[in-house]
Structure formats: C-alpha cells, structure tokens
C-alpha cells in the first residue's frame, strides 16, 4: 500500500494512524519514515506542521502511565473487585435483549413418574445433569432466589425442585425442573438455555419466563407473552438424540401464543393465550375506526397483537367498521366486530379465522 501523503490535508494527516504515532508516541519505528518523508517533501511542511500542532495542542499534556503501572492497575482491579451479579432490573435494562416472556407449564404425571423416573429420563435427555449437579429444593412457604453461574436467576416456588450443573457446558445451559419457577435468563445465543420438565422441554435464548407445574392439572401449558421459545416433546428430543438428528419437531411460539400438551394423547396443540397483550410498545391504546374497511381493521389488530387473522377478503369487501376501542381484550374487540359484520370467529392453530356471510 502506497499512501499518497503528498495529497493529504492537515485533517488527513491528523487522522492517519502512522502519522499520529510519530507525533504522539515518538521514538518508535515510525520516526525514521516520517522524518525522511518530511525532509523530502518540504512543500507539504505546512500541512504537516498544522496537523502536528493540532495533535500536540489537543494532547496538551501527555499523561501516561507505564505499562508496568497499567499492569498493576489491572491486577488491583481483578483482585479487589467483587463480581456483581445483576439484579433483575439492571439486567433487564442492560440486556435490551431481555425479552419478556411468561411461560407457564402445568404438569401432571408425577404420580406415575415420581422423582426417580424423572431422574432416569433426565439422564437420557441431558447427561450433563446426571452428575456433578446442584439440586435445590424449596420446602418453605416463601420463594427462593437462586443465581446460576452464568448470571441467570431463578425464583424457585414452594414445593419445587430444580437441578442444574455446577458448571454449564460451553454449548448449552440445561436445568431440570419439577414444580414451579420463574427464570431470568442471561442472553447468550451461543449457549441456549433449556428447561426440561417431565414431558416437554422448552428452549429459550435469554429471556424471563415462568414455568409452572401443578400436580393436579392434566395439561402442560407454555404461555408466551413476548419473545420467542420453542417447545419440544420429550420423546421427540430423545429420538433425535438417539438418531443424532439435528432436525427437531417442535413448536415455535411467538408472543400471545401458547401450547397445550395433553398428557393423555401426548400431543402439542398451539393456540392463543387467554388474554393477549398489546405487543407494540408505543402503540396507541385507543383505536377509532370511522367507516374503515374491515381489511384495514384486521391489519391493525394483527400488528397490535402479533396474531394472524384469516378472512375472506372478497366476501368481506363491503364490510366497514365504525367503532372505537380502548381497553377491551382482543376477544371483546373481535366479538364486537363480528356482531357488526354479521360474522363469527374461531381460533385454529393460533390464528383467528373469521367466518362471514358478507355485508
């Protein structure tokens, strides 16, 4: 690379790394080059001098510690600084990536699979958790706080048990839960976080969520309020592990979606959560529609709740809506729209389907 310094302005010089070194940190290998260059190009002396003067003026006083001093500072910091594990809020702010997510799992089957079979199962699916682990049980009436070595935090609810390795592996963070817990996971896309329960496993990438396990419920439920998780059936995971397949049959959940796992028919069923929340942070609370084409109304609702709305556009092309919405739930809004447009709705596969006879 042959930089044409002859065409440099004083600004260019002052931003050139090699030139800066010569001026600001003299007595290095650059000295020779620049001294020679300056003497060979006297007509550029003005620009060189101005750039030099500019840098020196800006530097003003060279406060510099020697490398030894700096090394001593480093040692001191390392020795004397305690590691602060972030609080929920701090983390939430610092990791903008801390996507809020609420995930709840209702779980039954402990009567058949008790603790032992759970252990056996956890060995198959997460060998890391079968040795050198920490197990915490909350037998009190109060919630218990646990901080993992990656900074993730767990709030363990009463009558619950969690198992995690003393040291997570470099690729995966895995925990096994019986009961209920709230997780606040430090984001690290390179080390996905897995929560295993008896029947289903949930993978998350840095988020906070709730895992609930009630012994008297027949379904397992994962509810996402924001963020993204994937849910897998345990048997599929085990199969994939056995066959060393990378493809997994799972269900991806986005905000306002939930999945129900029915233990009786071992099936995952995707749906919409009970009270879908407004997803867009700055979206207006109030919607006012004035003779608005129904397609536009549905478009706005889709965007606000992140849920697909399927309808026959041709059939409903003459439908217009005049209404104003405020705090009603999504379902209340839908009911009103359906009443006005003489239609009905149903929820299929986490989508809303509108049946209309036309307006």
């Amino acid at each position, binding site marked *: 690379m042959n930089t044409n310094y002859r065409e440099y302005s004083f600004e260019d010089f002052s931003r050139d790394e090699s030139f800066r070194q010569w001026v600001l940190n003299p007595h290095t290998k*650059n000295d020779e080059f620049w001294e020679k260059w300056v003497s060979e190009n006297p007509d550029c002396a003005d620009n060189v001098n101005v750039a030099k003067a500019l840098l*020196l*003026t800006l530097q*003003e006083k060279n406060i510099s*510690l020697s490398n030894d001093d*700096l090394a001593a500072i480093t040692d001191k910091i390392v020795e004397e600084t*305690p*590691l602060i594990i*972030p609080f929920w809020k701090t983390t939430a702010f610092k*990791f903008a990536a801390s996507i809020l997510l609420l995930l709840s799992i209702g779980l039954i089957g402990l009567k058949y699979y008790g603790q032992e079979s759970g252990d056996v199962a956890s060995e198959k699916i997460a060998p890391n958790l079968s040795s050198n682990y920490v197990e915490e049980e909350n037998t009190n009436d109060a919630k218990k706080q646990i901080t993992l070595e990656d900074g993730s935090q767990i709030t363990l609810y009463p009558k619950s048990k969690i198992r995690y390795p003393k040291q997570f592996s470099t690729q995966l963070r895995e925990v096994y839960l019986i009961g209920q817990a709230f997780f606040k996971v430090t984001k690290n896309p390179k080390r996905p976080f897995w929560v295993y329960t008896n029947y289903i496993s949930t993978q998350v990438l840095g988020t906070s969520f709730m895992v609930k396990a009630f012994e008297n419920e027949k379904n397992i439920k994962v509810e996402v309020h924001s963020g993204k998780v994937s849910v897998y059936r345990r048997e599929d995971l085990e199969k994939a592990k056995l066959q060393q397949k990378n493809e997994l049959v799972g269900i991806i959940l986005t905000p306002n979606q939930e999945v129900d796992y029915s233990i009786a028919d071992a099936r995952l069923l995707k749906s919409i959560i009970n009270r879908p929340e407004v997803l867009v942070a700055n979206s207006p609370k109030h919607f006012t529609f004035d003779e608005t084409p129904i397609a536009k109304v549905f478009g706005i609702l889709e965007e606000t709740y992140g849920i697909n709305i399927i309808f026959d556009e041709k059939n409903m092309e003459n439908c217009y809506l005049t209404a104003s919405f405020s705090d009603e739930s999504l379902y209340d809004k839908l009911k009103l729209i359906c009443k006005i447009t003489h239609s009905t709705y149903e929820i299929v596969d986490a989508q809303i389907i509108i049946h209309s006879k036309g307006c």
Partner: protein
Amino acid sequence: MIPQEAQPSTNNDSQLWQQLKNGSELALGKLIKKYFNLLQNYGYKFVRNEDFVKDCVQEVFVEIWSRRQSISQPDSVRAYLLSSVRKKILRESVRQKINGDDKIINIENDLKFAEFSPELIIIEQENTQETIQKVSGLLNSLPKRQREVVYLRFYQNLERDEIAQIMGVNAQSVSNLLQAAFKTIRENWSGLIIHYLFLINFIS
C-alpha cells in the same frame, strides 16, 4: 517503506470485550493498556487534577469488571469507554465539588471542556512551539462544544456517530459543530498560509 499501521482494530476491541465479559483478566489488561492513558487524557480536559482523573478512569474499569456478566456489547468500545469516563467525571466532580460550582443544575450543560494550555506541552523545536501557540489560540477561540468535538474527532480519531454517542447529541449536531469548527480553522489557517505565500512571491 511505509510503516505498518497500528490501526486500532474495532474488530479486535469487540473480541476483547467479549472475552472480558467471559471473565478474561487478560482481556481486561489489554483494554487497560490500550485505553487507560487515552481516557486519562480526555478526563484531564474536564478536570485539571491528574489524581482525580486517574481515579475516575480506574473506577470506570472497576465497574465494567464487576458488572461484566450483565454489561452489553457496545458498537464501539472506544466510544463506550470515553462516554463512561465523561459521565463518571461529571458525576464525581459534582459530588466532590471539584469544579467549585454549587449551582450545577443540568450536569450535561455545565460540562466545561477546558481551554488548551500550550505551556503544558514540552516541545523541543521552536517553530513547532510557535505553531502550537497559534493553533491553540485558534482552538480556544471556539465555543466549548466545538472544542470538544474537534478534540474527539482529531485527537481521539472518532467517527461522527461515536462522538454523538459520547456527547449525548445526535449525529447531525456533531456534523454541524464540526463544520463550524472546520470553517474557523480553515479560514484562519489558510489565511496564514496564503499570507506566507504572498510574502514569498512579493519578495522574489
């Protein structure tokens, strides 16, 4: 032979930062070695007290190290550090009343970017010394925000958006401040140079 450029690779900074987040003492040491003096120099522009500035810079690294598990990955490590030092110095100087100003209402607005004092520079060559006097006179005639922009742009060699981040303004304001400063510098400096050339022509 053109000397090899010791370009501060931003890529390298990001890697160091990631390693630091994972608890690497080596990475912390490298960042300190690379930036500590530079940060002190910047801090000294606000508060003329070397010990105070050194403590502030050190405190910034202490905080980074202690919060390494939760700290985010900045786009520009250099800009992040400069901005942290700036904030730290402002906060501490208010707290310790270093500036002797009790009436600070809005910290940001009351930031004093000191005038450059050329007598602090020890330079052997006399002609350079003279040029420095002129340049510093010129720079000190600029409003303090322009002065800081020029410092960050030329001495710290930063991009516009990095400067914007540090000074807490938008990139357009940085451009405007820089343009205004350039205009003053160019006008005055080219004036000097043209005057000089004119003299030579006249004499010959």
